[in-house]
């Protein structure tokens, strides 16, 4: 029996996002109670709350860390139509000699007319750059010309997608080698129909110096709740994980010598319906080889590819109860169901057991 470690997050309301910093040593959480909390991990592996402040005047949807090269910087976005940049500064030391650190607001981005649904920093090679998307479908790119001055974030580009957008993700690139243009994928959670495409790819055109929508992925027509590109790690293709009515993984392969049009082929590498309901979030590991997804069924599922085929390698139930075992007989090696189920999370207060 395995136990998952537990942290009492001390938020008064629903936690909307959890984000780790570049080194994985710090964690930020944000919630409907309008607070952002920052946690640090000590040598024993325990997470301790080091900062908590009221960041916005509405629910805070997302929080994200910048590359440590720019300092300890996070960005948040909220229902109150703003996105904010925060930096941790060293304060005065108290009597014990320990340094007090606190977070200050460096900039407020108020261009949106509706709730800002996602904010993400771009790859470090572009400098200090940030993209936001809002409920009225406008994606905005902000760039800080001077990394030392975090107060200046001029709005550089705006792309209007005309459908309510819920999430965005940058394609992480290490060098401009394989990907000549910067790329962002934006997802829409528009409920009004299930026919129009809900995933859009926007690229930066070096020649015209503008961002524009270059492709719509028609195979994804259900509302999209989360998307994330996998870390490339030297592979010859890009993987985009999408959380919609099921888990989908798209593979983007660069077309060699493409002269016009979208220079990538997009194919659906995998599609998993195992959650049997809406999938909310997806996250990749550091090598971009294993994907974790969370769904309305209260499970976290993990997916891994082995030589071009994808399969589920683990299901984590958040409450400690094992789901129904699917197949106990070991089948032939060709169809090896390596799905393992683990019970996690001993309930410490049985009187408050959560029922299903």
């Amino acid at each position, binding site marked *: 029996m395995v136990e*998952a470690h537990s942290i009492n997050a001390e938020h008064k309301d629903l936690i909307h996002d959890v984000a780790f910093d570049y080194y994985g040593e710090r964690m930020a959480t944000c919630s409907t109670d309008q607070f952002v909390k920052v946690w640090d991990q000590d040598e024993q592996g325990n997470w301790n709350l080091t900062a908590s402040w009221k960041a916005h005047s509405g629910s805070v949807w997302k929080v994200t860390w910048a590359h440590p090269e720019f300092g300890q910087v996070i960005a948040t976005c909220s229902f109150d139509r703003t996105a904010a940049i925060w930096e941790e500064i060293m304060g005065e030391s108290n009597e014990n000699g320990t340094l007090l650190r606190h977070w200050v607001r460096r900039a407020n981005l108020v261009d949106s007319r509706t709730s800002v649904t996602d904010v993400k920093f771009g790859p470090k090679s572009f400098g200090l750059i940030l993209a936001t998307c809002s409920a009225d479908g406008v994606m905005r790119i902000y760039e800080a010309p001077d990394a030392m001055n975090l107060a200046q974030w001029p709005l550089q580009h705006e792309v209007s997608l005309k459908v309510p957008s819920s999430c965005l993700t940058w394609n992480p690139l290490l060098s401009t080698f394989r990907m000549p243009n910067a790329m962002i994928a934006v997802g829409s959670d528009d409920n009004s129909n299930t026919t129009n495409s809900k995933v859009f790819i926007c690229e930066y055109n070096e020649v015209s110096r503008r961002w524009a929508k270059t492709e719509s992925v028609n195979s994804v027509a259900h509302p999209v709740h989360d998307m994330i590109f996998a870390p490339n790690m030297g592979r010859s293709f890009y993987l985009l994980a999408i959380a919609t009515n099921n888990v989908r993984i798209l593979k983007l392969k660069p077309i060699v010598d493409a002269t016009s049009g979208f220079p990538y082929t997009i194919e659906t590498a995998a599609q998993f319906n195992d959650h049997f309901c809406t999938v909310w979030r997806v996250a990749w*590991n550091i090598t971009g080889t294993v994907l974790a997804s969370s769904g309305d069924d209260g499970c976290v599922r993990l997916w*891994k590819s082995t030589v071009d085929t994808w399969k589920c390698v683990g299901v984590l139930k958040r409450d400690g109860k094992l789901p129904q075992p699917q197949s106990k007989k070991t089948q032939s090696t060709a169809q090896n169901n390596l799905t393992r189920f683990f019970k996690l999370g001993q309930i410490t207060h049985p009187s408050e057991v959560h029922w299903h």
Partner: protein
Amino acid sequence: MFVSRGDVPKLEVQWSPVHKNKFITWGPDIRMYEVINTATSEGSKSSDIPKGLVLSSNTSANLLATSTNHRYVKCIDIYPKPESEIMLAIGHANGKVTFCTFGLATVNNTLAGLELGPNSRFSRQCNAISWNPVNYNLLACGLDRHRSDQCVQVWDVEKSPLINAELSPGKPFFDYGTGETAHSLAWFNSSPHVLAVSCNGKTIRCIDIRDASKSTNVTQTRAVYGINIAVYNNNHIVSYCDNSIVLWDSRHLEKPVVTLTQSKSVSKVQWCPTRHNLLGSLQKDTMAISLHDMQQSMDEAEPSALERTVHPGQGNIHLASFSWHPTHENRLLAISQTGVLNDYFVFERMTLNWSTKSSIAWTYGQHNLKYISDKDLVYSSFEDISTTIKMRAFSQYGIKDFAENAKLVDDPIIKNVWNWLDLNRKVTRAGIVPTTPNVPFPGIKTVLGLDSGSPMPKSELKHVQWVDIQGTVKTYRSSARDNALFLCDWGFDRTNALHISALLRKLENENSHTRAASIAIFNLRMRDAIETLNKGANQQPNLSMIAMALSGYSPDKYSMWRELCSRTREKLTDPYLRAAFAFLTSETESHDAVLNEVGIPLEDRIAFASIFLSDVKLTEYINTITDKLLDQGNLTAIFLTGSSPDVVPLLQRYLDSTGDIQTVSILVLKTIPSEIVHENAVMMSWINSYREMLNQWRMWHIRAKFDIALKAVKPPPQNVFLTCNYCGKNICPAADEKEKDNEKETKVLRIKDQSENGSNNFKFTSCPNCQSPLPRCALCLAHLGTASAKVPLRKTSGKQLTSNSSYVLTGQSVNSFSYWFSWCPTCNHGGHSNHISDWFKNHLECPVADCVCRCYSLDSTSRYCSV
């Protein structure tokens, strides 16, 4: 509190506000249930079938009591006093209120049988009933209109005497609203004397029962049904009518906060008591409950709702009603129109994320986060290659030599690759196999001349006799083939019996008798093969049978031996034996059966091919197998491609399928010359990805060693210089390349003159160009260019130090690093590096007087140490 609308018998369900596991349903009769947890623990027997109604996969309900005495029930509310048994207040169609305790002997027996309500002359329908949540003795009833009676009556059940319904009823504690209709009512928790009432189909009023004339809080609206006040925040009120749900703020009741229009007519709304701002609503004839998550920002005038629908149960029966659990997070009970109950847990969206340190964290309920990391046992079942990479990196994989690398990996393919590279290097260093500067590790294809696309140089055909039996076999020889054999570790002299015997003995010691036997056969020594097999028969008895079969070998193509052996060969399990027999029974010259025997390692098959296949066939075989392995992304193909440019697509394919950026980067680093690597963008992108990964894990020392190995050829040019403040010239004479040599000479001589004792140490305290003094260390006040003195260390006794006590000189020796000066770029102060770092162990601010720069704290990453 529940109401029955019209004459349609309605089903209702409600959780008890005080008992966590009891609820009632009410329709044709009133039933009380108790919920039990039926979750099976490990090892439970299947005979534990839960009895009673199944509510969900891990709960079921047992019927505790039924009450059928009550007729024309219109509304019910449960007594909210904690620590009491379930008691219901029931409103009837004639306006009377009765109490039901399901026949349980309770403290409140006094109420059983009590009947409250208006005089029977004024009998009319009771629309709503509600216990006061704080003052448990007060019960409010909302009644239909009667021209001379009040529509709202609040009874105090402790003070009313026991009376008989026929005689004059007691007076209510409070009444209000003569000649009006009350549709629904609700108490405020925080102000328990205030009651919200909707009247006459067009108003909602908040009435203070201490003084009815004080009801100033009034609004006009048509949404008069189902008033519900949120438990956590009494300012939130909701009511509905037809297709609209209307939200109110009790502080500004004159105007609704927002109106939500639904597609069908609404039948129930209730705030979720465990979560802020979550409203559940049910529409007529639907199978789903709608959840409205009210979002409001301070600046916004109007909140908006995030809508979601949930389908309790199978989602194919129309729902009649639902009820939120008062304390369990997000739990609700839904009842369908056919009476089927469902215990449903509304999962909030779980957010999750994965850190670069291999921790997966997700939200659990409203307040908790759960996480697992690669330190937990379960993580290893995910077979995440990043943990493997990390472990290998810690053991210095890649920085060490080939043979060491082989020991660090578990994957046999990669192990083989490293071992082969080791062999390759031995063979090329000994000069046996030629190499070119671009391809320091030639593969089989390179050696055979196949990679250039041109056909291989011709080999000579020789018919070789079997050593100990009759018969000849066609073999081919050429210098290129010989080189290939060396690379396959078959570099022994095949004509020399001693070499072969030595090899066979070696293999026998490793218990690879079958391999030894097959090698002997491929070298045309039958007797040796039989001997080896017989020796191996000690462990595997059937080997002596094989030996017996071998001894009957006849070279005749049409003999019975050949026919039988080729048929029974299929039944052999050992790949070497199969190959040996395939060789002996092969019909054609192409020896396909041997070559396709994948159980034999590639080296042996290639070696075999190099001896026995003709030029054309050999070329064809090598090309086919290279393509096949390349397609699979099998790294074994490195035998064939070596470190020629052909290896790049192979590595890319391997990387695409496994994600093992580490092995790929290290192979590139170790096998391909640096100049080629630096020019090739693909390879540099691999190497940079790997370095980035090491950086993220804070394995900076290991990454630095990797960098050293990478740039072993050419150090980067110096790009930071120190210039003198006064003359602006570079103070390091040796570094300036543009200077003429004779000028450099004079400077060096001058410096040597300055140094004391004629020692060879470069001790210069002033600029060589303008002789102005160089800056001093902020702590020891010695000039830049002097070695730092040994730093005194205090004894850690914790006592007060006396003057002649406790300073102990450390044993630091003077080395080149002690000359190293370091500066803070913000305040431009600095000094000897070890002095500065010791200072900042105990202080925050710069050591220079009046400078308040927090030099050491400015860079947050400096808080972390390399792992």
